[in-house]
């Protein structure tokens, strides 16, 4: 149900002209089509659990099925300790300090193709 709303009078002469060109939309459509086809044929750099590369469609599906598996980053390798015990203690202190300052990293991500858990968010 519409209701007339009182408005100032319309003056068509003050309207901006609406020029519409085919080629902007047309070219973008073609570009979108090409990008879409490329995406459907795109093998991502993310591996599946069995070691093969995941297709982009498999990666997208993993988002909604809880199919991303994260491996924690490996701990820092202990540095080579000098013979002098005092220097060794200082080296260990520096290594421990740098590992606590480094945030917990996701590490490697893999796709579980068999996941079917709805996204918990």
């Amino acid at each position, binding site marked *: 149900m519409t209701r007339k709303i009182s408005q100032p009078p319309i003056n068509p002469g003050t*309207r901006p002209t609406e020029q519409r060109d085919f080629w902007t939309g047309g070219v973008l459509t073609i570009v979108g*089509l090409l990008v879409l086809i490329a*995406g459907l044929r795109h093998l991502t750099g993310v591996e599946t659990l069995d070691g093969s590369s995941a297709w982009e469609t498999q990666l997208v599906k993993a988002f909604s099925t809880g199919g991303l598996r994260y491996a924690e980053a490996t701990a820092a390798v202990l540095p080579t300790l000098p013979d002098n015990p005092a220097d060794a203690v200082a080296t260990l202190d520096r290594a421990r300090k740098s590992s606590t300052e480094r945030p917990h990293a996701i590490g490697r991500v893999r796709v579980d193709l068999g996941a079917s858990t709805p996204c918990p968010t």
Partner: protein
Amino acid sequence: MNGQSDDKSSGVGLSGLGTKPLSRIRPWFQAAFLAVWLAPVGRWLHGIPGCVFHCYSCPLSSFACPVGVAANYAALWPAAHEVPYILIGVILITGAVGGSLVCGWACPFGFLQDFLSKINRRKLQIPSWTGHLRYVMLIGLVLALPLFFGARGVPFEEQPVSVCRLCPAGALESGLPHSLQSIAQGGPWLMGWQKIVLLTVFLGAAVVIHRPWCRLLCPLGGLLALFNRFSLFHLRFRAEKCVECNLCRSRCSMGVKVDQQLNAPNCIRCLECVKCGAIEAAFALPAEKQDSYTSAQKP
């Protein structure tokens, strides 16, 4: 639908649309599209982002939610520098062909808001500048925040704040059915109270504001609306037919000053304004470019 327009402007005028009661046809189109987004037979399409706002965790969803996919890619970027080619392709095609046409005719969440707005309550008018919040959502909540947490090693599903955690569509289409399913199987209620509050606020807002999510917060609608200026499908103004009746403005539920600016970023292309006759839906074709207004002014 009519064929050629008579002023030789580029494109095909769809002037026949102006004589049909679009307010009666559009809900049928929206309901028909529900069969596309909610088709359980299409679960294998979950690997492809859709072009409308619909939660991919909905038990019946066919395509993946493009907003959720974008946020997941942003969260994943620090660990795996992957580019969402399919998502970009879908957005480009949808926007370049129709702009925000899918918002007005295909989006299930928009359909729900249209349905709720039919409840007879006085509707609040909100200023058009609030539409810019959609871009804050898009850049901040969909892209930057997941990237921020992802860089700190937090997987998207575990991020404390995310677009999916705040999404009313997710609450309605996923949280609610999964919680009911869990209860039916003797399990606990799954949806948190925060989402229940969000959903309640949204449903209440949809009664007193027409399409509050679309007008204020939808990042997908905001992105598609940017294509309105050059999409193939567009609206055009026939100055010679304008009788200054203000019907176009009164029929627009999105607050667009249709007489001043067609193809605005906050237009959902519901085509209700086409009823006035001076506004015409058109589809650009490769033809000689000619301004529709100046051509109408020529003797």
